């Protein structure tokens, strides 16, 4: 396993091509746009060595029996699934933001069990390749970015019907050494500070879309790969450590648009190539694993929001007001409800033919659906408790200005025994956690709400529920 410092040093050896604000970022590891996301991911490495957390963040490989970081593990019990959720909550409590590594973890698991199913039905040889790839990832402790979301162009058209064929990643060449792919992947969490990406199709496909049925792994710095880093709601606040809110770990996951311009992938890292009938199940496996996470990581972030809201109420002198206590209680209730969902879909996990364990997909989708609502309510309550000054605060430069700093200090004071700077810091943290980019991530990360509703309706047994009602109503129907 790597430590956080070793992980950071390993990134310096890569030749990752990253653009932001129209320019290529050189020495991206130390760039203030990127570094907080690297720090956040580094914690997934360091916590594996911390006696307080190693019971969650490490486990034994089912392939080698060796101790590995859990982010490289394929789940082999319901307990594994539960521990993953607990690990995510514990890490998020310390970062207060996304630490990015779960996407690749979920991709490894989804591709692992899909390749097994494909080989059984089609006689292909993908699963052995996937196991070899997993062995390499476990041995190297590399960070893998899960790469699913295509740009999608006209949402009313399938992949092969788009005006521009590159709006979904597709195979443009097959030869005896491997394949060449072209297209792009969007909203790529943690990709610029990963080592590898694991590409998957973005949706169910038809026979006409066979060239779009592709899953493969490649380095993030492979020739032809370019990353265009996404803007965030605080990305010009890099000159101090208060206005950023969370200067050490940043905000969301450092997402990027990843361009794949005729990128070669050798056959030993190709896990699907044309088997369109398995694209839908791969997407569903990945989506369910990823939706499982959200009551863990968002639960952990919400723990910080609850703490920050309770603290700011104290700084404002309002902590004892009954309505404040009631709002904090509601925030805790919503946080634990999210956590319940993640634990439940994990505890109800079941073995697949590959031996890997899969979550209960209905409960996983319900969990993520709740995140699209409850996080907004948790943040709304936090704004209510904190007060409007979290949106109107002057900058830290004004607070420390020799000319006007004393005014800022005087008029932004709360209770007498708390320094104004302390109140400033907590307000900025709340702004970071609850506004802008972080909020949207709760809505669309791991799929937009409608994607979960489709899965919820598909997984629920509506006929069974109707029969329950008819039975109680005394309705008998002739068959």
């Amino acid at each position, binding site marked *: 396993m790597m430590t956080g410092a070793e992980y950071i040093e390993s990134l310096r050896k890569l030749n990752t091509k990253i653009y932001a604000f129209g320019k290529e970022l050189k020495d991206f590891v130390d760039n203030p746009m990127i570094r907080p996301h690297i720090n956040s991911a580094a914690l997934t490495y360091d916590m594996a060595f911390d006696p*307080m*957390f190693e019971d*969650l963040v490490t486990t034994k490989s089912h392939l080698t029996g060796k101790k590995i970081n859990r982010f490289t593990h394929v789940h082999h019990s319901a307990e594994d699934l539960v521990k993953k959720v*607990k*690990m995510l*909550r*514990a890490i998020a409590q310390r970062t207060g933001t996304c630490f990015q590594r779960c996407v690749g973890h979920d991709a490894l698991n989804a591709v692992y069990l899909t390749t097994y199913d494909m080989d059984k039905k089609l006689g292909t040889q993908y699963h052995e390749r996937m196991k070899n790839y997993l062995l390499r990832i476990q041995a190297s402790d590399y960070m893998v970015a899960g790469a699913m979301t295509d740009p999608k162009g006209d949402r009313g058209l399938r992949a092969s019907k788009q005006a521009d064929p590159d709006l979904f990643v597709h195979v443009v060449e097959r030869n005896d050494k491997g394949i060449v792919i072209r297209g792009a992947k969007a909203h790529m969490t943690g990709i610029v500070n990963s080592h590898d990406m694991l590409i998957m199709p973005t949706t169910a496909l038809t026979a006409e879309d066979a060239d779009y049925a592709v899953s493969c792994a490649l380095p993030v710095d492979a020739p032809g790969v370019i990353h265009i880093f996404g803007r965030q709601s605080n990305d010009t606040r890099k000159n101090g450590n208060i206005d950023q809110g969370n200067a050490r770990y940043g905000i969301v996951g450092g997402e990027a648009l990843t361009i794949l311009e005729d990128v070669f992938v050798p056959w030993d890292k190709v896990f699907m190539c044309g088997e369109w009938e398995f694209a839908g199940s791969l997407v569903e496996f990945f989506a369910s694993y990823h939706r499982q996470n959200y009551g863990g990581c968002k639960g952990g972030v919400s723990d910080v929001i609850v703490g920050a809201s309770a603290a700011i109420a104290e700084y404002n002198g309002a902590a004892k007001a009954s309505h404040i206590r009631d709002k904090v209680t509601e925030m805790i209730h919503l946080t634990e409800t999210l*956590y319940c969902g993640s634990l439940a879909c994990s505890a109800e996990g079941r073995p697949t033919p590959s031996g890997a364990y899969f979550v209960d997909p209905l409960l996983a989708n319900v969990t993520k659906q709740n995140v699209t609502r409850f996080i907004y309510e948790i943040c709304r309550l936090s704004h209510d408790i904190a007060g409007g000054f979290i949106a109107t605060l002057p900058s830290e430069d004004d607070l420390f200005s020799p000319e006007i700093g004393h005014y800022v200090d005087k008029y932004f004071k709360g209770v007498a025994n708390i320094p104004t700077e302390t109140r400033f810091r907590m307000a900025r943290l709340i702004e970071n956690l609850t506004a802008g980019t972080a909020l949207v991530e709760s809505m669309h990360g791991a799929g937009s709400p409608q994607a979960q509703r489709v899965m919820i309706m598909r997984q629920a047994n509506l006929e069974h529920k109707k029969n329950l009602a008819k039975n109680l109503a005394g309705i008998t129907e002739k068959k």
Partner: protein
Amino acid sequence: MTSELKVGVKYCGHCNPHINGPELVQNLKQRLQNIEIVGWDSPAYDVLLMVSACMSGCLNRPPLKGPWIEIVVNEIREYQITDGSKAGLLLKALRDEGLAGK
């Protein structure tokens, strides 16, 4: 100076903790003075202390080769200690810290 009691410690992971495990261990260090804390996977210790910070008690027990004590939140849930052994010092210190249980 060699320590009187070497304690291997294993924590649960503290995802939703009701107690602060490391703080408890620090308190034990102050109370027992001549005590050395090592990781649960260290080659040798006098007693293993397993600390679960919430009631689920989900800590993965390692192979138990010698004396051990398991605490769950503020309760001594289970232990295996021979009478008169050095490990008994730790059990007494936990009770003195106010932990309930056996």
